[in-house]
């Protein structure tokens, strides 16, 4: 097991700085997911940790050792790629052992490691096949196996499930989680799929524009996004955003819609002092809204419902608040008439308020 430490990392492509002064501390045995849209720098960061591209500044430490200038093979890492990157025209066994043979690992040792990896990944029957004879899921298992036999402390995953269909993706996701429990190794996992991030990670680093926007547990990221980007990127269907202004004049804080309707915000924990009349965005997740009854909720907002979209286990109700589109998730057994104009209920401590200009959480 090993920790990974990235200190003041700069990465440049030509004259373009893709990553600037990035710091990231990953504990031993931690599963960390780098999440973000394509081009956000997450794969670049992973490749830098692997030593596959040169850094322009800063340091990378793995297991208490400065590996900034080390070759990939000497960093104690194993890597799994999106395209599997299996060596074609070599059997599965050949794929697993190629690197070990290069490192002059003793033959008995190689045998043992291959047997162990094949057992863990349940690919024993496939060992003499070629990659072209395997399904996508099997190929990715073999690719994971290739990282496994290297007997390393840190696993790097570069969008490993993106080429698989939905069913296999779920299956392998569970598999990777099980692997992490079994091995206890440090894992860094790059994806643009927020479900993968939320299910797998101990901590998620949401990245955009080469910067880590928020580094926190999945729950924290989901519940208390640090800015509008994180709020909008994580969660499906996306968080609802309603524009308005903040008012503190009536004794309790309130969110004022453009048409003048006041929504009570008592119970929302502001991060700091906010002045009267600040333009802001109210963010609230579809499942945090109840269109039927007040219950324990303290606040309400007017919604124009337009359409019901049943999705099996639950249903989405689509509508508008002012000019913003708005969705509410209800139980699949429940029904609601559309179109209709209703008051929907929510608790301000489950909502997020963002500054309209900077997008930062208030």
């Amino acid at each position, binding site marked *: 097991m090993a920790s990974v430490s990235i200190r003041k990392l700069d990465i440049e492509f030509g004259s373009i700085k893709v990553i600037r002064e990035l710091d990231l501390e990953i504990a031993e045995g931690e599963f960390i997911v780098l999440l973000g849209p394509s081009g956000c720098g997450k794969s670049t960061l992973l490749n830098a940790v692997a030593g596959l591209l040169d850094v322009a500044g800063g340091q990378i430490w793995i297991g208490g050792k400065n590996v900034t200038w080390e070759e990939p093979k000497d960093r104690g890492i*194993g*890597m799994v790629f999106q395209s599997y990157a299996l*060596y074609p025209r070599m059997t599965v066994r050949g794929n697993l052992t190629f*690197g070990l043979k290069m490192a002059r690992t003793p033959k008995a040792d190689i045998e043992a490691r291959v047997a162990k990896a094949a057992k863990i990944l349940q690919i024993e029957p496939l060992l003499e096949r070629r990659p072209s004879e395997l399904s996508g899921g099997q190929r990715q298992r073999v690719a994971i196996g290739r990282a496994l036999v290297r007997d390393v402390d840190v696993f790097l995953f570069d969008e490993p499930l993106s080429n698989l269909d939905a069913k296999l993706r779920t299956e392998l996701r569970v598999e990777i989680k099980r692997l992490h429990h079994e091995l206890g190794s440090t894992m860094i996992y790059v994806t643009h799929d927020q479900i993968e991030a939320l299910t797998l990670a101990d901590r998620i680093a949401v990245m955009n524009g080469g910067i880590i926007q928020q580094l926190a547990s999945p729950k924290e990221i989901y519940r208390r996004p640090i800015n509008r980007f994180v709020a909008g990127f994580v969660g499906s269907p996306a968080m609802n955003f309603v524009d308005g202004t903040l008012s503190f004049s009536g004794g309790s804080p309130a969110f004022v819609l453009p048409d003048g309707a006041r929504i009570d915000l008592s119970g929302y924990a502001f991060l700091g002092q906010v002045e009267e009349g600040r333009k802001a965005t109210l963010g609230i997740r579809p499942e945090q809204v109840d269109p039927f009854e007040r219950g324990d909720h303290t606040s309400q907002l007017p919604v124009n419902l337009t359409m019901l979209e049943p999705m099996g286990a639950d249903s989405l109700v689509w509508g508008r608040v002012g000019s913003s589109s708005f969705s509410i998730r209800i139980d699949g057994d429940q029904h609601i008439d559309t179109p209709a104009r209703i008051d929907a209920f929510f608790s301000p401590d489950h909502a997020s308020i963002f500054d309209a200009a900077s997008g930062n959480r208030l």
Partner: protein
Amino acid sequence: MNPRLKRFWSAQLALTPAWLIVIFAYIGTILWTVQISFTSSKVFPVSNYVGFAQYSRLFASDRWMISVNNLFIFGGLFIVGCLVIGFLLAVFLDQRIRAESMFRTIFLYPYALSFIVTGLVWQWTLNPTLGIQQTVRNWGFESFTFDWLTRGDRAIYVVALAGIWQSSGLVMAILLAGLRGVDGELWKAAKVDGIPTWRVYLHVVIPILAPMFVTATVLLATAVVKVYDLVVALTNGGPGISTEVPAKFVIEYLFQRQNLGLATAASTVMMITVLCVLAPWLYWQYFRQPRSAR
């Protein structure tokens, strides 16, 4: 007319020129040629059938046997030379070098030239009295000798050299396209596994490029069998008949020596050889794989 019928009628009509060419210019001429090869025709085709007499005469002919022998020497050197040089050039060009497109342009331009031009240029450059040999002697190396062009036992190597000069660029272009198609993550995976670059080329990249090597080899082999103008321009078969090739043999016996029977027998042998080598490859390449695959 039934629209379904009309539809296929249009398609068949559009294929008429192709059908006519295939039936008359390809199949018809081949049958005719094979037929003449079994007669004793000299200046004009006659229908005096002599069985395989022309074929036994052919293989008893020194000139033909030298031609065939030359074809193998030339073909072997030319194909291996082009593949090796073309592969090396492609690999070296694929190393993120400066001025790559300039180098590529230089390596490929000879392929745009006529074999006649190639032949004449090398004839001139390697001419012993005025070319490289004399030039090096003028530099002070009085005993320097490079007179292969005028030596019967060496001239065929010069033909191969000129051929390689012209066609290596073709192999380079084909293989470079292949190299650019190799999954970049494969290189990363090999780097993480700590596999030396040359081993990746040997064990991973070359197997991936295998189909392109086959394609290049087929193209080069076709050029080998057809080689005619290069020899005409470079050595004209000489010195003596030391660089004769089958294609030239046939043309000469058809149009200058007026021995139709022998010439058609020779061309039939050429065709059958090519078909034997080619048919399996064509079948594999175009008909066995379903259209949907890849």
